[in-house]
């Protein structure tokens, strides 16, 4: 074991401590200062104790830096609650954000504000762009995100019913469903019982010829024939189909 060399102690240890913490009367302070000029033990101890104090204070500040020192608390009257600060191991997100902003430098606050403005701008632009795109069932079908056949049929039926109940909506939907250059072959047709059905045809690879029923329906939709003349209808395409 290494030998520890400590300067011999002086009998005025209590005065030394009082002097170290500046809790000594004026006359006693002068007296002790005079004593220290001649006492090597006190001079050495004072220097060592001062260094130890500084280290202890550094330890305290490092450990309890977030807590105001008692002198600051006494001066400001602010008394943060330890249990609330330290009682919860995980502070709330809001508290963490507040603390983050409180501790952040000015440039970081500015940068965050700028980033927030940019984010809001992009969000508004994205919403505006989404609103410009058609919201008809075609949009749903064109995206082709609905993969299940049953789900697709359910959506189709729902939209068809909606269009049937609301003529103006039907008109709008028709315009949307059968555009000049449609991305897919979705269409509406009148069923045998007079109801309108939405037919989903997900972009056929090859164009197939219309069936007789489809052509009749198309003609009826375009008001080229009246429904009562349906039986006498003789369509050129049908002949063509038969020839094929």
């Amino acid at each position, binding site marked *: 074991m290494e030998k*520890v060399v400590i300067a011999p102690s002086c009998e005025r240890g209590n005065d030394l401590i009082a002097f170290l913490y500046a809790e000594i009367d004026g006359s006693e302070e002068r007296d002790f200062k005079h004593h220290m000029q001649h006492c090597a033990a006190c001079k050495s101890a004072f220097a060592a104790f001062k260094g130890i104090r500084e280290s*202890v204070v550094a330890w305290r500040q490092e450990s309890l830096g977030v807590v105001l020192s008692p002198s600051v608390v006494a001066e400001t009257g602010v008394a943060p609650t330890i249990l609330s600060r*330290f009682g919860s191991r995980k502070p709330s997100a809001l508290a963490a954000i507040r603390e983050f902003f409180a501790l952040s430098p000015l440039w970081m606050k500015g940068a965050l504000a700028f980033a927030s403005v940019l984010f809001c701008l992009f969000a508004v632009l994205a919403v505006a762009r989404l609103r410009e795109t058609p919201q008809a069932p075609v949009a749903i079908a064109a995206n082709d995100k609905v993969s299940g056949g049953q789900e697709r049929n359910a959506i189709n039926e729902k939209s068809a019913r909606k269009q049937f109940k609301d003529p103006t909506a039907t008109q709008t939907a028709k315009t949307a469903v059968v555009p000049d250059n449609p991305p897919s072959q979705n269409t509406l047709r009148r069923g045998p019982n007079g109801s309108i059905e939405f037919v989903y045809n997900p972009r056929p690879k090859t164009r197939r010829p219309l069936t007789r029923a489809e052509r009749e329906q198309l003609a009826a939709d375009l008001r080229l024939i009246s429904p009562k003349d349906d039986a006498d209808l003789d369509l050129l395409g049908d002949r063509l189909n038969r020839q094929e």
Partner: protein
Amino acid sequence: METATSDEQIVERALTGDAEAFGEIVQRWERRIFSLAYGMLGREEDARDATQETFLAAFRNLRGFRGEAKVSSWLHRIAVNQCISRQRRAKVRNEAALDDEAENDASSFSAPLENSPGRVTEGREQIDAVRRAVMSLPIELRQVVVMKEFEELTFREIADALDLPLSTVKSRLYTAFRQLQMRLQRFGNEAA
């Protein structure tokens, strides 16, 4: 201390059934009790738990407080007892007791304090060595160091809190500093 009378009045209110009165005591003293517990135990989590246990014990024994001592002294005694019993429990459970570490591990100290004027800037190693040295002090010496340095109490306040003569507080602090000096120098010699 200025708040001593008020503390006793608040405790009286708490005893008469004022539900918020004890909360005021907690708010007033928790920071100091936490600092004391931290200095005694050296770990934040332990200090937090000890602080909570202190106030729980105080609340449970509120009826036993007869006003013979100051509220501050009463709370300090409870806190110190909590810290001591907590350390004992930790030792029983074979947890890494900080005072044992302080005795065994001296590798973190790089130089004797009295030979290094720019002490604080020497960084973490020195702080760690001081922490270990403080933790290795006997409880009655550690107590006054912590109350002085962590709670920033005056000698008179420490004397009142611990119910000791003023001269005893000073002599204990002086002895504590001498022992810290010896421990740190020994750490330095062993590390060299």
